[in-house]
């Protein structure tokens, strides 16, 4: 069985090395003293059928239902192609409610991630190896045009209906291809602009067929992408992606399968209080809102997300067991309580009101979180992320509202000088408590896309003197009375705006420190603390000079490129017009003039049809251009700032001592919450 894609195998190798000598940075060696950083560990999937359990157990509540005749016996609920999981430490026991905090209906990811195993393939705890999940195996054809998923035989939805290849075909034909639901296709299914299709081979075999070689598809299917992301995240909150959908349930809400067509569908929708059949469908296929919806993850919603408490209970047809034959999950339910602000969420976590919480926990509060460990009966873990930088300064390359500003934003030496002027050690100490790693935007040394030795440091070490010299040399030598460099067109002070949103990290504050450091080389930067919606609207409208965000996800450049290169107009901070141009195939937006950008885009396009080794080289090539040109300045990364500060109740068992922190690891879902349990 070909479980690992070659890329992921290399990733795995790299990471094992990385864990041994985590980082040369001194901050991280002292981090060892804290005892807060564990070693990555995770569940093991038992593939040797000889070791599979022969008899099965189930939760007492389900056993009662079986007795009452409301549920088939456990062995009939489990698939023939079992998923047998060896938990991190021990066989658990049934029972208990996992208490968490969430911020309201927009925080659906809080629960989506817990159900991360509802995708064909799921990355393991290293973030590098892809494990089977809904699919027991997969294969890419030699010509790169046909990708085959082999589904588990006997897989069932949470209502007991069989899950088959038909559910993939249904999604493709009735949802994805319906222009009223999804007006445009997705790049994941459209290599080189040529639409691919999904074809049923037999009940448990699905082919994804493309006209051109699309070797990248294997990575896409295994990543947290629109195609490979699974039902929970990709079909909630009005999204309609995710490769499959419960045909037997959703057909009822599609006009095509209703006797009266669209009119009847709309009438039925209005009778239920929806404005149209589309609105009704969006509701019905959303697992966070609709408790009736058949799902495949370990938990299903029983009280919807749009209440003060979001409650999930175990899926009685979940298709995984532990090595002793106990059907998972062990936990009875997940209960998330809404909070109106994050200070209260953090304080409640300290009070021990949550059993395991890593989402919305603030790294800046680490000293206080540690102080209250005994009182709240939890343990603090610091999980370090894989991405290059938590604060990345994107220079808008398509800015055109002010010719002078645009000229400097497009000047490579200007950007390099500003990067050299940043003292990353200072930022690390102040905002990351010294636990992160300074450097460029490039992924860590251990990852295969790492461009090579020296590229984490290139243009990314503190050198005020060189920065000053470079700025003098490019024509910004004139300064005003306060020592700030002036514009070349009118002699006024050159003022660059940094647009910063108070979101996952205190970016406005970080930027205040960066602005202070830039002031020392004579560049006046005005920090614009902007509300998130407004900031996104402005970037879409090409109005920003510099936008600061993080680059989590870019470590797998092809799966989540938007914060590295301007290809996805959704968040194209580096050049919204260029991203529009790229995404529209040249019909909208503006073509980049910078040959280096064109080169990067070309490399990116060609990578989809390249085999793994070649693709890795292409990615390294792109990173080299990115870092040499400094289109975006990296500061400090590989930190626990995003979901990496984890508070775990002392009562919980089978908790890995370190989580994988990355977009595709679906933290904490990649650690298989279905294997966690209460020890007492």
């Amino acid at each position, binding site marked *: 069985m070909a479980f690992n894609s070659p890329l992921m195998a290399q990733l795995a190798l790299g990471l094992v090395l990385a864990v041994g000598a985590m980082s040369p940075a001194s901050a991280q060696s002292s981090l060892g003293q804290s005892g807060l950083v564990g070693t990555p560990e995770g569940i093991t999937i038992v593939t040797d059928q000889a070791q599979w359990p022969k008899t099965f157990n189930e939760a007492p509540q389900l056993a009662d239902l079986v007795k009452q005749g409301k549920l088939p016996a456990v062995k009939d609920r489990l698939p023939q192609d079992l998923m047998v999981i060896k938990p991190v430490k021990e066989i658990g026991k049934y029972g208990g409610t996992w208490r968490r905090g969430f911020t309201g209906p927009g925080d659906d990811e809080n629960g989506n991630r817990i159900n991360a195993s509802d995708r064909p393939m799921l990355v393991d705890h290293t973030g590098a190896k892809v494990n089977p999940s809904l699919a027991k195996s997969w294969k890419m054809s030699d010509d790169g045009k046909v990708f085959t998923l082999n589904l588990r035989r006997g897989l069932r939805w949470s209502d007991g209906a069989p899950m088959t290849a038909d559910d993939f075909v249904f999604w493709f034909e009735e949802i994805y291809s319906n222009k009223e639901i999804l007006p445009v296709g997705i790049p994941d299914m459209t290599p080189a602009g040529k639409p691919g299709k999904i074809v049923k081979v037999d009940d448990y075999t699905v082919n994804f067929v493309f006209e051109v070689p699309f070797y990248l598809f294997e990575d896409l299917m295994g990543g947290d992408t629109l195609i490979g992301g699974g039902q929970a995240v990709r079909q909630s909150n009005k999204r309609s992606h995710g490769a499959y959908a419960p045909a037997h349930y959703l057909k009822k809400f599609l006009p095509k399968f209703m006797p009266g067509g669209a009119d009847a569908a709309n009438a039925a929708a209005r009778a239920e209080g929806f404005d149209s059949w589309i609105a009704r469908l969006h509701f019905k296929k959303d697992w966070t809102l609709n408790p009736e919806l058949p799902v495949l993850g370990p938990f299903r919603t029983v009280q919807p997300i749009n209440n003060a408490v979001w409650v999930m209970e175990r899926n009685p047809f979940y298709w995984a067991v532990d090595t002793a034959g106990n059907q998972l999950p062990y936990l009875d339910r997940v209960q998330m309580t809404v909070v109106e602000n994050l200070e209260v969420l953090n304080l409640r976590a300290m009070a021990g009101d949550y059993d395991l919480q890593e989402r919305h926990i*603030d790294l800046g509060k680490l000293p*206080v979180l540690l102080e209250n460990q005994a009182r709240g009966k939890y343990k603090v873990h610091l999980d370090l992320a894989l991405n290059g930088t938590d604060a990345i300064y994107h220079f808008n390359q398509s800015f055109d509202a002010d010719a002078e500003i645009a000229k400097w934003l497009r000047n490579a030496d200007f950007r390099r000088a500003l990067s050299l002027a940043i003292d990353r050690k200072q930022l690390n100490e*102040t905002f990351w408590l010294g636990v992160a790693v300074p450097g460029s935007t490039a992924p860590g040394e251990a990852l295969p896309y790492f461009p090579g030795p020296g590229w984490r440091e290139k243009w990314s070490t503190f050198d005020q003197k060189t920065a000053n010299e470079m700025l003098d040399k490019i024509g910004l030598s004139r300064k005003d009375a306060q020592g700030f460099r002036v514009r070349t067109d009118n002699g006024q002070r050159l003022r660059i705006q940094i647009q910063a949103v108070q979101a996952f990290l205190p970016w406005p504050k970080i930027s205040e420190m960066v602005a*202070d450091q830039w002031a020392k080389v004579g560049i006046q930067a005005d920090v614009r603390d902007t509300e998130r919606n407004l900031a996104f609207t402005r970037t879409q409208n090409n109005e920003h000079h510099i936008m600061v965000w993080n680059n989590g996800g870019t470590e797998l450049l092809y799966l989540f490129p938007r914060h590295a290169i301007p290809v996805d107009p959704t968040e194209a901070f580096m050049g919204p017009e260029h991203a529009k141009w790229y995404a529209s195939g040249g019909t909208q937006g503006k073509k980049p003039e910078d040959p280096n950008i064109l080169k990067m885009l070309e490399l990116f396009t060609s990578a989809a049809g390249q085999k793994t080794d070649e693709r890795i080289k292409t990615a390294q090539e792109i990173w080299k251009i990115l870092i040499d040109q400094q289109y975006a300045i990296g500061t400090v990364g590989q930190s626990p700032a995003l979901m990496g500060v984890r508070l775990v109740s002392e009562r919980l068992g089978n908790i890995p001592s370190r989580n994988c922190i990355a977009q595709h690891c679906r933290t904490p879902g990649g650690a298989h919450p279905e294997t966690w349990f209460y020890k007492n």
Partner: protein
Amino acid sequence: MSEAAKADTPFVTAAEEKVAAATQLQLTWWRFRKHRVAVISGIVVIFFYLMALFADFLAVTGPHSTDAARSYIPPQAIHWFDQDGSFKPHVYALKGRRDMRTFKLVYAPDPSDRRYLKLFAEGYSYTFLGLFETNRHLLGLDRGVPEDALFLLGTDQLGRDVWSRLMLATRTSLSIGLIGVALSLFLGILLGGVSGLYGGVIDTAIQRLIEILRSIPTIPLWMGLAAALPSDWSVTQVYIAITVIISLIGWTELARVVRGRFLALREEDFVTAAELAGASRLRIIFRHMVPSFLSHIIAAVSLALPAMIISETTLSFLGLGLRPPAISWGVLLQDAQNLQAIAIAPWLLLVAVPVVIVILAFNFLGDGLRDAADPYG
């Protein structure tokens, strides 16, 4: 009480003669002087406005100067006497490191490295009262830059001196209050005056407008307006706009007071006289009527100012008012509005002290003025 007193007094004493001859403002002043708390409050207010005026001079370090090596330093002890017992105020330089078990920053004073305080020391340069450039500050150190060793009220997360930031914040917030009140006052007197003077349809229309404005919850109104500000505006432009937004609500109360006064005054002889003499409406309002209830207005203003200041802090809290890098009381309070500040850097909360003092002072001052505004009462 006063009616009875007048009726019972057969003679006119010298003091009363003085009273009879005094202008209304004089009378108010005499009466105000008797209200001790109000007088003290008045002095406090003047003191704070002086502080605002000389903010840069009183600041010790550049308010935007950051350094990780001095993040979250607690307020520093000043040692008044040197080893030999002579009066030489000094501070010890600090050595800091991060404890990797608690992740807290620990600072230890280094008694061997003494820095003596110096008056009129050199520091960052600024424009003194908008007149000339200087780098002299009230306080400084005998050697090294004050940034490295002088932390009267401690430092914030970015290692910026809280004392210096507080000085500049005082200037911003107090002037927002003043400008806001001035705007409210202008609108209030104009619309309240017009309403009271003309009556009829105009009065009804203005009263409706006031009622509508007062019926809209302030926070959505602020949010809508603040979010609608063009985002490429500079800090100064935003500052002025925020002031205008705050005063948009403030004027209605003043307009009500003014209207009530006008309704009463309209019937007075001197207004009729002025009208007969052919004075214009505007002249009647500002030349004749306003002075006759000036003291009421002063009282209303000093009660409106604290509301403005609180509004500014609330707006900043909601992320709608002034945003960093601007420095105001609201911005500084926002910095203290998190658990780590309360738990490990509680000195950031000290910023609330001047806010409380100023609001109290304005309230007592306003009370005193209001009592005094009815000099015959």
